[in-house]
């Protein structure tokens, strides 16, 4: 798959990045496609630099792995937009920019004269992307929205968890991630339109809306049938326990089965595998032989047709589940995953972060991406690309910036701020 790279898709695009945590994956996506993303940090640095985990657990603005991941390829300047001197410099930057990404409370930038109207007066074809919990309009527009509020209000939390527990929060800020992904897509859409028509515009992204499509069929199930999907623990969408479907514990972790799904081998193939290893017990005898031969997704749809048969069927399913549980318990998770896949049986490994880092597939594809950090005296392995483009590849071209690392380069060399002006700005606290 190595093909000659010729350009980056956004190599002529400048982005001013005012984004807080909810929008930093958006500007990372743009930066990794080649945009010149100028991160505007408040003097003292972006508060997201304080979030764990840290490199070697050393709490330091330059060592937050969480922050580093979100800020590859960006340049950093410090600028206080609440100070008039800061705003003047920002306006000079806007004149050179294509896109501004911000995540402030709706109306905050308008109050500074830097909302869409103000920005487009400076740069008529500017694209302003606003990413917030609930979007720019509506009664909840000003609600405070950390990730958990978006995941709750977007319907995704309702569907996750065991009925005995509180609904489960999706891990690692999926509300923020979804908002950023849709923020980047909306920005790229607006950019395409600008390229064609010369017209800029305001892109409005709501965390609640961008995440809510991940409710799967819950919305339509309520709309069409007035039936409510709820959190159902390990059973997910299937209301009864079916052997081979769901999590099974190995001797060193877990796998997750979906045996009998279209395209994969049948339960019979799993029984044969267990028999080969002397672990099938009585599943190779009647009545189990015939029962297992008929154990497929169609089985589920006819399960309740003969109510008198249900207790017997449940008992047999439970026994098959026990035999399988013992079989899986004797294996390692990679052994079970690769062994099952080799037989076209649908099992997936329940990957830990370690499994992802060491995955033979991701290793083969060089997914982890080394980035040199001279200040740490080390090369860190960054999690890699979400997509590969043969002509305009994703790339990490520079490590995330130090706080204000590019102040002189951008203000001095590029905007032509003089030494005297610079000293006055420093004295005012605007940079």
């Amino acid at each position, binding site marked *: 798959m190595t093909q000659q790279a010729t350009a980056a898709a956004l190599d002529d695009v400048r982005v001013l990045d005012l984004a807080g945590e909810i929008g930093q994956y958006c500007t990372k*996506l743009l930066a990794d496609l080649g945009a010149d993303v100028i991160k505007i940090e408040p003097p003292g640095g972006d508060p997201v630099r304080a979030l764990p985990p840290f490199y070697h657990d050393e709490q330091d603005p330059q060592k937050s*792995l969480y922050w580093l991941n979100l800020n590859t390829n960006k340049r950093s300047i410090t600028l206080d937009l609440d100070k008039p001197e800061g705003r003047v410099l920002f306006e000079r930057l806007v004149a050179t920019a294509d896109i501004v990404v911000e995540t402030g409370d709706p109306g905050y930038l308008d109050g500074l004269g830097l909302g*869409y109207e103000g920005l487009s007066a400076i740069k008529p074809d500017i694209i302003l992307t606003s990413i917030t919990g609930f979007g720019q309009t*509506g*009664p*909840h527009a000003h609600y*405070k929205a950390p990730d*958990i*509020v978006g995941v709750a209000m977007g*319907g*995704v939390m309702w569907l996750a*968890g065991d009925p005995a*527990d509180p*609904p*489960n929060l999706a*891990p*690692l800020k999926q509300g923020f991630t*979804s908002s950023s*992904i*849709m923020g*980047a897509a*909306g920005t*790229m*859409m*607006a*950019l*395409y339109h600008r390229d*064609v028509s010369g017209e800029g*515009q305001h892109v409005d*992204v709501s965390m*609640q809306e*961008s995440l809510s499509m*991940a409710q799967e069929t*819950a*919305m*339509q*199930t*309520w709309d*069409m049938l007035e039936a*409510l999907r*709820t959190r159902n623990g390990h059973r*997910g969408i299937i209301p009864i326990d079916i052997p081979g479907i769901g999590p099974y514990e190995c001797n060193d972790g877990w796998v*997750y*089965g979906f045996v009998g799904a279209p395209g994969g081998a049948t339960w019979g193939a799993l029984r044969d595998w267990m028999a080969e290893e002397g672990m099938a017990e009585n599943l190779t005898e009647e009545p189990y032989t015939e029962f297992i031969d008929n154990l497929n997704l169609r089985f589920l749809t006819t399960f309740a047709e003969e109510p008198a048969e249900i207790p017997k069927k449940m008992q047999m399913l439970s026994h098959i589940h026990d035999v399988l549980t013992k079989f899986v318990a004797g294996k390692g998770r990679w052994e079970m995953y690769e062994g099952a896949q080799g037989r076209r049986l*649908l099992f997936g490994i*329940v990957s830990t*972060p370690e499994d992802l880092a060491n995955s033979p*597939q*991701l290793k*083969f594809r060089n997914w*982890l991406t080394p980035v040199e950090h001279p200040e740490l005296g080390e090369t*860190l392995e*960054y*999690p890699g690309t*979400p*997509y590969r*483009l*043969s*002509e*305009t590849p994703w790339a990490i071209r520079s490590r995330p910036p130090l706080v204000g690392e590019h102040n002189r380069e951008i203000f001095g060399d590029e905007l032509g701020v003089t030494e005297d002006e610079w000293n006055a700005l420093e004295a005012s606290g605007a940079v």
Partner: protein
Amino acid sequence: MSAKLPLEGLKVADFSWFGAGPICAEHLATYGATVVRIESETKIDALRTVAPFAKDKTGYNVSGYFNNYNAGKLSIALNLNTDEGQKIAHKLIEWADVFLTNITPRVIERWKLTYDDIVKINPEIIGAYQPMQGYDGPHRDFLGFGAVLTPITGYNHLSGFPERPPFGLGTNYPDYVINPGHTLIAILAALRHKRRTGKGQFVECVQLESSAAPLAPAIFDYTANGRVQTRSGNGLPYAAPHNAFKCQPASDGGRPMDERWVAIACFTDEEWSAFVEAIGSPEWTGDAKFATLEARKENETELDENVSAWTADKNAFEVMHDLQKQGVPAGVVQSARELLDIDEHIKERGFYVYLDHPEAGRTAYDGPPFRLSKTPGKLRSPAPMLGEHTEYVTKEILGLKDEEIADLMVAGALQ
């Protein structure tokens, strides 16, 4: 407002199925592209056969699961296992600017629809592929779809409470926003490059890579520190409280569907003080055990019990509104019912779109996932019925004559 949508005139041959591909193509249609969905009665998109179905209706055209992801598209029925069907596929590839598929590499090779195959037909085409694990590598041909992809990509291990098995998020989570969203970004990048240079390219959005990317902080913690993070419930190390709390039920049936929960989170001292005030400063809030974030983290179980005791007899929506008024982050753990029927904010923004479908009737669709002020996307038509536009596509788009179409039907190509 601009008269033209951004992608008006763009032609997309959507050879995808299930979730990640069709959703991506739907967004392209929403912003103006002409999207032809290539389907077959002989290899039906399984989502057409999966519930929910419009009330008291059956058949391939009434699944809410399928319909929600395919608004605004044209559908042609085409059997790619026939020579004549292959020829029509080639004509569609010749016509298209973008080719999209998430069908497994083995089948794509059998149908001769790899990127190397399609550039021979259309040298400027953008070929977007969403294989499960990639077009190369030792696990290239591993089976999988959402239910198994979610655990493989790391979500199950990291989701939920530590004492529970890793059952995941109750859905095929990365299928719906993460993978279609990443693919959409990649296609838009490729379109921009094509506009600048005239060149198409090979776009590979591997579902394993795309799904794992948002789990970066945990993967990075391993590669840099050797630490293996695991699921840890609803908490965050730098907020307390940070959980969902049970409120007065919506009705007293005692089933999970009758429950109501509210998420509450305090990150700063200001938020905590505002929370204490909002709940009337009960005695326990004065205890040193809860005075600082560090202390609240240490005593979080007790903290959560106290907060639960306060929420237990309250209406979740009132808790949210009251706390938000005081500057405390709070949100109802909404069900789909609440999103569709109760959420005043969603209603005012008009997020859900109701479309009239000839067989399924009037049903709700997810609206555009982002809003462009001058070129707002629009779901222009309901999901197509299987093969609804076979005649239109063959005749009007591909310019075939009536007798050619008749021959294709006789050859079994249009099914």
